[in-house]
């Protein structure tokens, strides 16, 4: 009805702000071209053959026994990994929040565990599991004397993915447990319930939506994971690896596109449930801060077993990581344990190590600041501004979170190999470093945006309004107020996206051309060939780079960050 006047005025005000309009237009173009379009083209590809709509592509791939097996394999692994990671995550979170930890050593272990998923390249654990438990595995062969242990397959993937993803659950659940008001549990204790009973009747029911949320997040991650099944899956194929092989082995791009659509539908459905149902529910039941400090459990019969369990698990994970540099230092893993630097030397002398690291480094270094800035801009627009296309921008950037890398990779092949809509437009873009940079950006954008959004939500809206009111235009407000206030989020977005890019593989492996050598692709190649020494040498250097960047970030935040001041009060 009469709201047309305010709509018209809002539009007019927006148009009076050219920088803002340009930004929005550029963003919409970017998101449409690099996220929506590749996914749309997959749909087109899987329903249209020779210009006519058809279901035949789907019926062909569904007729493939290997594809049907891949679906059940993927779901089986995802389900189990989801459950195991959630349980282990809950254990860690519970111990940290509820149990009195009195040594710094144990506290350090927890910190380490929360750090690992940030710095760890995706397939490092697969490498170590093979080296520890495989046929030449130190533990299986030399300690237990088992000569034919087969780690490849269902259990291998499950083990590796669980160890990779449980820290994520731990971090999510820790936040929720901290929000439980201790008085709820104390009331039950007062009425005579045992600790176990309180956990079952109070803590667990409150956590249920949160647990479901953690489960689904892990489920999605597991399904989307490409690197681990690739290395440790053996003949046990999952959807991601099957799609990859469909393209690189069978050269059936349309079939791969249809498979990618199936994978995408599964992750999207779960993402929808997770995002719009469970996430809301878990924050609704546990909102706000606990009213006061919790009495920590110091009861020895609870404390020791739980702490020891956590410590053992954490040490086990740590052992896995330690194994990687040693893999690079032993002459021949499993046979000759003399230390050598030959693998490291070969990386650089025979396998173009410098170029590999330079390419990976440069491409990631280019994409990181773009991603960080872009995600801050998107967060600003989403949280602080109102305009028509806002919903679109928010939805598409979040959608990218649910798109498995393999799906995106196939989408880019189908979408850009012949140019946009096969018209040749932007065709020269395919196979360049630019497309790799774009993929890096798209893959890291959702994480950065999410962190930016939650940082901005903490900031009183009127702070930016006041700057606007004093005469600053949107651009000035963003540069002089918004960005400085979320500097920490920006800096960590910078490093996170750098680390994510340099360790990325799933989408990239489908798009990279011989003119670019990337570390992760090299590791994957050497691991496939069984050259563990070389794979470990590359991986070791990669871990050093990522760990170094995170340390650097913490230093920078410590000295240049503003969050302490923003939060106000004590300094």
């Amino acid at each position, binding site marked *: 009805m009469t709201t047309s006047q305010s709509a018209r*005025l*809002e539009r007019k005000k927006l148009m009076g702000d050219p920088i803002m309009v340009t930004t929005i237009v550029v963003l919409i173009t970017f998101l449409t071209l690099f996220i929506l379009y590749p996914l749309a083209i997959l749909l087109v590809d899987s329903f249209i053959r020779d210009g006519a709509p058809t279901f035949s592509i789907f019926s062909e791939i569904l007729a493939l026994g290997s594809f049907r097996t891949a679906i059940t394999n993927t779901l089986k692994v995802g389900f189990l990994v989801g459950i195991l990671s959630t349980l282990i995550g809950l254990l860690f979170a519970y111990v940290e929040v509820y149990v009195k930890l009195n040594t710094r050593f144990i506290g350090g272990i927890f910190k380490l565990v929360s750090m690992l998923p940030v710095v760890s390249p995706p397939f490092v654990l697969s490498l170590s599991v093979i080296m520890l438990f495989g046929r030449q595995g130190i533990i299986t062969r030399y300690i237990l004397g088992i000569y034919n242990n087969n780690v490849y397959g269902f259990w291998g993937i499950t083990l590796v993915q669980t160890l990779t993803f449980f820290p994520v659950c731990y971090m999510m659940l820790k936040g929720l447990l901290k929000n439980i008001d201790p008085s709820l549990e104390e009331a039950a204790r007062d009425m005579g319930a045992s600790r176990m009973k309180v956990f079952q009747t109070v803590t667990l029911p409150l956590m249920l939506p949160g647990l479901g949320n953690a489960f689904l997040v892990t489920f999605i991650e597991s399904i989307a994971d490409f690197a681990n099944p690739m290395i440790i899956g053996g003949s046990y194929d999952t959807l991601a690896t099957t799609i990859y092989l469909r393209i690189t082995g069978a050269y059936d791009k349309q079939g791969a596109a249809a498979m990618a659509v199936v994978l995408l539908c599964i992750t999207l459905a779960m993402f929808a449930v997770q995002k719009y149902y469970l996430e809301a529910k878990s924050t609704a039941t546990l909102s706000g801060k606990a009213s006061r400090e919790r009495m920590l459990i110091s009861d020895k019969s609870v404390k020791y077993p739980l702490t020891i369990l956590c410590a053992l698990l954490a040490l086990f994970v740590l052992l896995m990581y330690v194994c990687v540099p040693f893999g690079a230092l032993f002459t021949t893993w499993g046979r000759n344990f003399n230390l050598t630097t030959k693998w490291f030397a070969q990386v650089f002398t025979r396998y173009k190590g410098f170029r590999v690291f330079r390419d990976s480094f440069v491409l990631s270094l280019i994409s990181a600041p773009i991603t960080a800035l872009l995600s801050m801009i998107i967060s600003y627009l989403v949280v602080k501004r109102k305009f028509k296309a806002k919903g679109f921008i928010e939805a598409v950037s979040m959608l990218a979170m649910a798109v498995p890398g393999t799906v995106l990779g196939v989408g880019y092949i189908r979408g850009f190999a012949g140019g946009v809509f096969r018209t040749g437009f932007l065709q020269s873009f395919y196979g360049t470093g630019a497309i790799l940079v774009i993929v890096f950006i798209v893959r890291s954008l959702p994480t950065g945006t999410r962190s930016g959004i939650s940082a901005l939500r903490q900031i*009183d809206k*009127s702070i930016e309004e*006041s700057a606007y*009111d004093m005469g*600053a235009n949107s651009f000035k407000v963003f540069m002089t107020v918004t960005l400085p206030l979320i500097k920490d989020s920006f800096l960590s977005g910078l490093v996170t996206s750098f680390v994510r890019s340099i360790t990325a593989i799933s989408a990239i492996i489908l798009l990279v051309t011989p003119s670019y050598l990337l570390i992760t692709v090299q590791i994957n190649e050497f691991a496939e060939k069984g050259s563990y020494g070389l794979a470990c040498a590359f991986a070791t250097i990669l871990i050093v780079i990522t760990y170094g960047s995170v340390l650097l970030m913490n230093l920078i935040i410590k000295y240049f960050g503003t969050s302490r001041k923003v939060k106000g009060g004590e300094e």
Partner: protein
Amino acid sequence: MAEKEKKGVKLEHISKIYKDPKTGRDFYAVKDADLEIKPGTFVTLLGPSGCGKTTTLRMIAGFESPDEGEIYLGGEPINELTPNKRDTAMVFQSYALLPHYNIFDNVAYGLKLRSLPKEEIVRKVTDILGLVGLEGMENRMTNQLSGGQQQRVALARALVLQPGVLLFDEPLSNLDAKLRVSMRTEIRRIQQEAGITAIYVTHDQSEAMAISDEIIIMERGVVAQIGSPTEVYYHPKSRFVADFIGEANFIDAKVLSGGERAQVEVLGEQLTVGNHTGLNAGDAAQLVIRPEAARLSDDGVLKGKVTLSTFMGSYQYYRIVLAGDEHEIQITDYNPIGRKTYQEGDDAALDFSAESVYIIPGTGAEAEE
């Protein structure tokens, strides 16, 4: 310092429609507000929570766009201008200081945007900080200030721009009661010194009474009355205004004859009372008696029984139920010494002069809906 021209503000049939997030239905947060604020005056928007004060202010600042009507600032229509292009400056409830800048940079922010020469910025900022009593604090960060000091910075930051109109949205609500009283006097003093037009939002009627040239009372999105503090207190146009500003007792009345002084029938008695709303014979009306406008006495027109009598220090507080009426009437008798003190259960009558009570339109039954 007010070398700049003062500007008036005019709202011409302004409405703002929002969607109720619960029901999804549209409703008027502000409806057909039509008012004019003269240059250099201090005007308060007063009303209960949710009546649309902030919305009105934000439309003037440019943060919201009106769905109907046009807003003028100094005679210019400003509907299409963004907040940064409007000659307004706002003082926010939460102060909204820029936490990463010190006091100087906070106050200088708007001046730097206007690319003034550096010396001029320093001079202006120093002057203004002097005016609000913060000299010497230029280098402090905002979190090193008390609430009152932060409020002064927010004020200084707005004043230094010499805006055509200064907007305040409940600027004192985060301060303690004592500081609120001293700050409001100070805001008034500074506004007078700067000679600037000010629009001030509050839901605290004593604050509004204390500082305003004019009060605009709003009720559920609609302007209920505009007038000086004395006008709205002594000549409320509706039961809502009479009730919201100060305390008031209402008794149903029937107008027998109109005019400047009206003849009314109240609880079977005939009285002569004030009639500033110009009611005519036959109109439904309510007699308004402020608790301090009447006293208890042994003989008077309206008789009743005392139901409560409490000594409050500076006054004696009574409640009395009149014959033929079920409501309790509150009476505050200042200076009761030398007069009879009534006790619970005593018979008493209300004693007042024709000048101190008046009628307004409406019936008690309507008001209770």
